[in-house]
């Protein structure tokens, strides 16, 4: 019997537990701010303080967030020619978090894989007091250091501690000096400092971590410092009454420093505390710092002709410390023109009250991450292909090294984006409507990608300036103002956008893997391939017609009784009535990029009331619903229950939307556990089977507000009081079968991958009550 077996059918009257929802509760967020401002003619100030307190949607004490913030802005006119300002902020926050997503110690992986007759709420055994989960239901005394395979989600919510304690101070000082009427000199010096102290702990008996069952503690401290210096001088000129403009010259220096120190201890001595001192073995500490410096000079000239035609020309020279020594500095030009053709009074008429056409072209550069120009020796651990086993480079008490798999690139330069943007803005129907339309064509050259190398050369990747990409898009917005009265106003806004993305060239590479969220195999990879949108999904598939495939020596496309006459893409059914997995090739079958996005926004004020609403829409954008196919594998879904017993026919009683061909057409087959834990499930079936259309329409927000400013309010010392109630994410219309098509997963590192649904925590619906007391 397989470890993941569905087991026998539950008897009549068996108790069913709500393992899908019982780990969630109604969260509560309170956000209070107070602010004051004032000053004299020469001196002004603004002061505010805030407190945000959040109790999350997961049960237990480890799902909380608290943030305090204070802010001060001040300005002083020192002389008539000199004004100085200061802006200072301090924010401190403390949060506790529950592990989530693709994680055997996380919340939903264990929760949703639990069979319905196992009560997760009883997460500690009544007899031994130890952690029980469905794969380890009866923990005997002495099993406190045994992995549970999956953690009980209640254990995951109550027992481990994962915290973040952030302090952040940021602000700047500014000076504006106007020595003569035509010249202005601006200076600003800003800094942003933050420190994040983190704890991540894996308790005894937890299933996750390098030492599953034995516990683990990770302590990390991360510090970010950014210093920004900006100096610019702007001169105004007036050649004639109708020809004037500005000339600006400036310099910008920027430094971003990052520092991380982290320690990991394995094998807890006692169950608590979660402290490195309570661990038996410690990994060599991680000690990382990086600094990225940017040095730019820029100049810009503007011309204003007849107050109708505005021209801007700019040129900047940027230097990045992350580029190779030979390509350290680069030039980026920019230019724009706009013509307000209805600026002259008298030219307006009822239909058209305002008109502007605009066009702009600009180039900008993107820098790679630090230190990619050198090949290094790595002291990182050796992972066994992604299956979990790991050997540290410290063995027998001595530390080892291995040449990094990434070949340094001393010629690395900027990724350059050139964008041409054109459009117009119109005021229509005596300003009862305005319309904006923008078209852009963006071309990226020298795109920085992890270029795959032939492993036989000694390295697997190199960060290179390869690739040309193109983004072509349209954006349109129409705002209507049907009511513009004293007592009532009503606005309706419609917006729509679409973007088409295409990879034009990859310098000969077949493809570059952008993201493989769960490694390879039965899981899809987001790739870059010539002629395709960036990040299109590459996945395994079943044998299908029209691909020139051969099955057991039969060229199926040319053979009658197989695919001959069948439409391309038809699912090929073998003689046993079941599809076959294509073990040779992978296909581009899904794309997370939407066809278009749009929405409707409306706002109505009537006397003291305001009503608002926002509806969001997305058309297209495929989502890989691995949650569904994983739960099918474990037999936890209505789908797996329905096809558990009996026989079904592909293309008819099972997956009726699939067109089918081949010798097995019309043959009834048993599905059940064999199918869902095999080709029909997430682990051993092709990834293509889990793609779904992610189109949706979402009622994003509805709100109602009331402004109370009667005599009574003034008598108690306020000028007015505002009440507002809003509901967010109220309803979603979609054919998507998962929790929410708007989902994404965080991969290793920081990149967020759209359209991957794998036990992600759901989006929340919220109701917001606001009370503002204004004096």
């Amino acid at each position, binding site marked *: 019997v397989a470890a993941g077996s569905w087991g026998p059918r539950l008897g009549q009257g068996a108790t069913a537990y709500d393992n899908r929802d019982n780990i969630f509760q109604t969260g509560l967020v309170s956000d209070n701010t107070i602010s004051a401002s004032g000053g004299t003619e020469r001196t002004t100030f603004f002061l505010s303080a805030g407190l945000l307190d959040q109790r999350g949607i997961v049960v237990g004490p480890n799902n909380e967030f608290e943030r305090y913030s204070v802010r001060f802005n001040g300005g002083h006119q020192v002389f008539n020619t000199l004004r100085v300002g200061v802006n200072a902020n301090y924010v401190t926050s403390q949060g506790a978090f529950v592990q989530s997503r693709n994680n055997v110690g996380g919340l939903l992986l264990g929760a949703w894989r639990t069979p319905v007759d196992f009560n997760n709420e009883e997460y500690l055994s009544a007899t031994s007091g130890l952690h029980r989960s469905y794969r380890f239901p009866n923990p005997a005394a002495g099993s406190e250091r045994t992995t549970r395979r999956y953690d009980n989600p209640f254990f995951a919510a109550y027992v481990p501690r994962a915290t973040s304690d952030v302090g952040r101070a940021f602000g700047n000082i500014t000076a504006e000096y106007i020595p003569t009427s035509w010249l202005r000199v601006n200076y600003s010096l800003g800094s942003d400092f933050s420190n994040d102290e983190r704890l991540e702990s894996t308790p005894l008996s937890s299933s996750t971590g390098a030492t599953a069952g034995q516990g683990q503690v990770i302590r990390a401290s991360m510090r970010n410092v950014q210093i920004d210096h900006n100096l610019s001088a702007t001169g105004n000129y007036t050649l004639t009454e109708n020809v004037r403009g500005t000339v600006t010259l400036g310099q910008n220096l920027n430094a971003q420093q990052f520092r991380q120190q982290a320690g990991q201890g394995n094998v807890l001595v006692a169950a608590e505390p979660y402290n490195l001192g309570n661990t038996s073995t410690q990994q060599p500490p991680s000690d990382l710092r990086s600094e990225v410096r940017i040095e730019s000079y820029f100049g810009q000239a503007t011309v204003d002709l007849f107050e109708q035609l505005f021209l801007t020309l700019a040129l900047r020279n940027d230097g990045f410390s992350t580029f190779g020594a030979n390509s350290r500095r680069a030039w980026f030009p920019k230019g724009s023109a706009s013509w307000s053709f209805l600026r002259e009074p008298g030219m307006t008429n009822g239909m058209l009250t305002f008109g502007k056409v605009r066009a702009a072209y600009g180039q900008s550069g993107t820098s790679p991450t630090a230190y990619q120009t050198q*090949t290094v020796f790595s002291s990182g651990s050796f992972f*066994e292909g992604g299956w979990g*086993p790991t050997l540290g480079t410290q063995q027998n008490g001595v*530390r*080892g090294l291995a040449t990094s798999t990434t070949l340094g690139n001393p010629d690395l330069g900027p990724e350059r984006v050139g964008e041409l943007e054109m459009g117009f803005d119109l005021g229509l129907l005596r300003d009862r409507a305005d319309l904006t339309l923008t078209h852009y064509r963006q071309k990226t050259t020298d795109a920085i990608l992890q270029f795959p190398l032939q492993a036989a050369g000694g390295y697997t990747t190199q960060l290179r300036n390869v690739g040309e990409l193109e983004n072509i898009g349209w954006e349109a917005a129409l705002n209507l103002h049907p009511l513009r009265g004293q007592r009532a106003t009503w606005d309706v806004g419609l917006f729509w956008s679409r973007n088409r993305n295409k990879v034009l060239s990859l310098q000969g590479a077949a493809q570059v893997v952008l993201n493989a969220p769960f490694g390879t195999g039965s899981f899809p990879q987001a790739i870059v391939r010539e002629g395709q949108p960036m990040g299109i999904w590459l996945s395994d598939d079943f044998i299908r017609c029209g691909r020139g495939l051969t099955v057991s020596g039969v060229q199926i496309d040319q053979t009658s009784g197989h695919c001959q006459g069948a439409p391309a893409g038809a699912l090929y059914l073998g003689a046993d009535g079941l599809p076959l997995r294509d073990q040779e090739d992978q296909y581009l079958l899904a794309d997370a990029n939407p066809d278009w996005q749009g929405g409707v926004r409306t706002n109505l004020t009537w006397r003291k009331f305001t009503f608002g609403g926002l509806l969001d829409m997305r058309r297209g954008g495929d989502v890989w619903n691995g949650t569904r196919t994983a739960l099918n594998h474990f037999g936890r879904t209505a789908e797996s229950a329905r096809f558990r017993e009996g026989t079904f026919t592909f293309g008819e009683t099972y997956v009726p939307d699939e067109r089918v061909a081949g010798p097995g057409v019309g043959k009834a087959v048993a599905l059940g556990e064999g199918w869902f834990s095999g080709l029909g499930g997430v682990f051993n079936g092709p990834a293509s089977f889990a793609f779904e259309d992610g189109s949706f329409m979402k009622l994003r927000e509805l709100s109602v507000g009331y402004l109370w400013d009667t005599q009574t309010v003034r008598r108690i010392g306020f000028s007015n009081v505002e009440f507002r109630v809003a509901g967010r994410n109220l309803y979603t219309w979609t054919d998507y079968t998962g929790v929410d098509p708007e989902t994404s997963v965080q991969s290793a590192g920081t990149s967020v991958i759209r359209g991957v649904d794998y036990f992600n925590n759901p989006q929340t619906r919220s109701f917001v009550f606001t009370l503002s007391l204004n004096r």
Partner: protein
Amino acid sequence: MKLRLATVAAAALASLTVAACDSYLSGPGIDQDPNNITQLDDPNPLYIGLQTAQATQFEGQLGRIAAMYTQQIAGVARQFQGYDIYGSQPTDVDPYWQGVYIGGGLLDARRIQRLALARGDSTYAGIAKVWEAFIVGMAASFWGDIPYREALQYSETTDPTTIKAKFDPQRQVYADVQAQLDTAILFLSRTGATNVGPSARNAELTYAGRSAAQLRTVYTEVARTLKARYYLHMAEVDPSNYARAAAAARGGISTPANDFNFFHSSETVSNNVHYQFYFNRGDVLPGAAIINLMKSRIKSGLDVNTDRLAFYFYDVDYEGRRTRTRTSATARRRTRTSPAATRTRSRTSTSSRATRTSVSR
């Protein structure tokens, strides 16, 4: 006052502009990596890395799949149910193919040889050559034709996209491996003050604690055993290889104490890779075929007691069921990556480091 401020501002602008220049963008920690070693003339750290990386390679997925195909173990959960019925995808072996060549594999085996020879250390170079032959011979056995003579041509100063290593015929690779082993034996025959090998810095993990002279002896034996193994791999295409194998084996590993075993300690990040997989992921169980075979041998009196069954499958009862999910015993963490080990094991292969993180799924 007005004039003075203007002068100060101008002076500030001028000084910042001058101070900036290119020195702002370069220097240690700015355009030079402050976190990693970029220069190395000591082969010892690389040798530790090489042995460890090859332990993940030889004890990992390729071995598991081979063991499933020969029914020594059975895949019973998640992806391993698929592998158990011969499901495989082109990308499944990518990390292990890469592990043959990248850092921790052939690349570092060669670098160790270069660094060692620069120090006049033939012992070290000879040992690294034995490892090179071990890695490459396994790859030829597993994949057939592989790049070897044109391998490892990338460098920072050449454009890697213009370089493509040719795949060499399997027979040629085996012949080259035999030649490498002959050179290794020659290197290991040299004595002298500079031939210190890895023992001085405790970098030898397989034969930890042995002196340079002892390592020369034992690695010469390993080289001969490897020669015998690789002659046997080619024996069916050229039967004269049987005699060569027999001749080489006579000078091969002479005593069980000299077995080429990677030593795993009980420290968690040193545990045997198969052990880690078995106890932490647990998607495989002992295969029925081998248990039945062993039981039949006990029954028919070929094996006198059940010790071997218990040794192979220590938490599995006589029927092949798992009796305990985990014990703290460390006894069986010493695994064989030995050339003298079974055929399945000898055919296993490499590891990936890169940015791969462990995956729950």
